[in-house]
């Protein structure tokens, strides 16, 4: 181990004298250009979108000087306000339910040994890879035909909770991996009940994981489209659905402004979630 790290540092500091081939000389610029292209493809559209959200022109592909009129119009648009309200309701409730259920699931998985535990854990992670469209159709069928629910905000909340549980459970489980179960035993040994042990020991040590899972759940719910599209009902339009129906009528700078705001919100939430996940227990 030590020797290896020593040799790498030597290699890094002492120039290697050998004849560079043509390929060697070309490699660096080629890779550089490639990286540039990737960035252009990935981020150019987004940069353009953000730029045009500040354009005064009513045509989304023409620059008409800087303005924040579209943002002002956005905030005055009652349809969008309603969609935003719906989205926040759905995101909040599905985050809450998914966090509670997902955390309890993760705790049970790490605490108890039971038959079929591995199978349970695998199937728990499955919704992460199940195609959204399959999830959408199956939830629609289940909620309407089996449970006989009317489509609307509650069905969207249920659907979002379902797929969010998996994400929360996976993140909390990762946090629990480094958690010493003997700490809980020590607490119970000193007179704490299970409930007290959870709030005094377990929760303070794993809350960054729980919060991180909650934030991710909230973010995923904010811009969920496919599943929502299947289980939405009259009066239950969320922002992504609203954007979709507006785009059908033509892309306006107002949509650019809305998309920019959603992008900013998502980046903030995900960054916070990742920071929390990295945070070590102090």
């Amino acid at each position, binding site marked *: 181990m030590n020797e290896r790290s020593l040799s790498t540092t030597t290699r890094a500091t002492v120039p290697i004298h050998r004849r560079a081939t043509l390929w060697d000389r070309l490699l660096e610029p080629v890779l550089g250009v490639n990286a540039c292209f990737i960035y252009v493809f990935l981020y150019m559209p987004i940069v353009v979108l953000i730029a045009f959200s500040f354009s005064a022109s009513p045509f989304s592909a023409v620059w008409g000087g800087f303005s924040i009129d579209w943002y002002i119009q956005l905030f005055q648009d009652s349809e969008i306000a309603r969609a935003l309200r719906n989205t926040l309701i759905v995101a909040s409730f599905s985050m809450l339910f998914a966090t509670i259920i997902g955390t309890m699931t993760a705790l049970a998985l790490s605490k108890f040994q039971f038959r079929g535990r591995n199978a349970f854990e695998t199937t728990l992670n499955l919704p992460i890879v199940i195609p959204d469209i399959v999830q959408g159709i199956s939830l629609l069928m289940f909620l309407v035909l089996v449970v006989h629910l009317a489509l609307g905000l509650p069905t969207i909340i249920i659907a979002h909770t379902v797929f969010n549980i998996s994400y929360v459970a996976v993140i909390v489980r990762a946090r629990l991996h480094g958690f010493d179960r003997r700490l809980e035993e020590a607490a*119970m*040994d000193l007179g704490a009940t299970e409930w007290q042990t959870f709030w005094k020991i377990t929760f303070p040590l794993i809350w960054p994981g729980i919060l991180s899972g909650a934030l991710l759940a909230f973010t995923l719910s904010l811009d969920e489209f496919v599943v929502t599209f299947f289980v939405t009902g009259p009066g239950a339009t969320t922002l992504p659905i609203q954007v979709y129906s507006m785009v059908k009528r033509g892309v306006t700078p107002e949509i650019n402004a809305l998309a920019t705001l959603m992008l900013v919100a998502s980046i903030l939430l995900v960054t916070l979630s990742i920071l929390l996940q990295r945070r070590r227990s102090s």
Partner: protein
Amino acid sequence: MDESSVELKNLSKQFGAHPVVRDVSLQIKRGEFFSLLGPSGCGKTTTLRLLAGFDNPSSGEIFINGSLANGAPPYARDVNLVFQSYALFPHMNVYQNVAFGLEMKKLSRSQIQPMLEEVLSLVRLTGLESRFPKQLSGGQQQRVALARALVTHPSVLLLDEPLGALDLKLRKEMQLELKKLQRKLNITFIYVTHDQEEALTMSDRIAVMDHGRVVQVGRPEEIYEQPATRFVADFIGETNFIEGKIVSCDPPWVKVDVQGIQMSALGIPPYEKSREVVIAIRPEKIWLQKEHSSSSENQFTGLIEELVYLGTDTRYLVRLSDELILTVRQQNLDHSAFRKGDRVYLGWPAPCAQVLHPETEA
């Protein structure tokens, strides 16, 4: 007779098909320093966990202060455990760690304060109240774990190799401190260790465990002087094992023939004639002389094959016959020590040699 502090009746625990604790029965007296001694993996920790209530026994009963504890949750047992890994709460400082048990008992801050000061000075941690566990040395962490378990005044303290992670010097110091502490507080200590020396120096009584079974219970000198099985004799200290056949039995003496040499040893009858047995004798119980002694009965001749000088004493390998070599330890009292190749007389007082029970191991 006052009731015992802890009593185990035919306690067994298995994980799946793997038996870890097998039919353990023990009575531990109030205020006793009781050790569970055995090699790593023999089921000591599991026994403590059953006592603390973290695991449920597969069968058998646990009595704590005279009442049946089976099924009672850990927080309802008047027993505290000092974990092998200490298990200090990383998000709490020393004060909060130690106060935890008192807070769970719903004591007020003003009640907690004096108790905390007392216990922290007892374990010499005064002044470190606001440190977090990771800011403490191993020895300090150990003392926090001890204080945390002691502060609620449990009637029994369980200690799982509490000194195992400390260096030798600190361990010796802590052994004395723990022993003093136990005397002073008069709390029953159930102390788990795989270190025979630690068990011998600290305990009132020791239970030696092997493969989940208790093979012998007794005071340290009983365990050392009269090991019940070959395992015990081998695990605790150094022992010569001599295999032979019984010639005659005159309770409590047993005469054994070892390759034509007759020896007498202490044994508990019944022993039938010509049965194969093992005699155990400690190296330091054997005397060495240059001249024949007229008084001793258990006396043999031998040849010094090898010797190792150890400072206060010397270890000799003495050959009695083709297949019988004994280890002998002699204190270096004078300079007239023996040399390699010397012909010597050796022997031992008969009560020091012990006929072992046949091993009950399946």
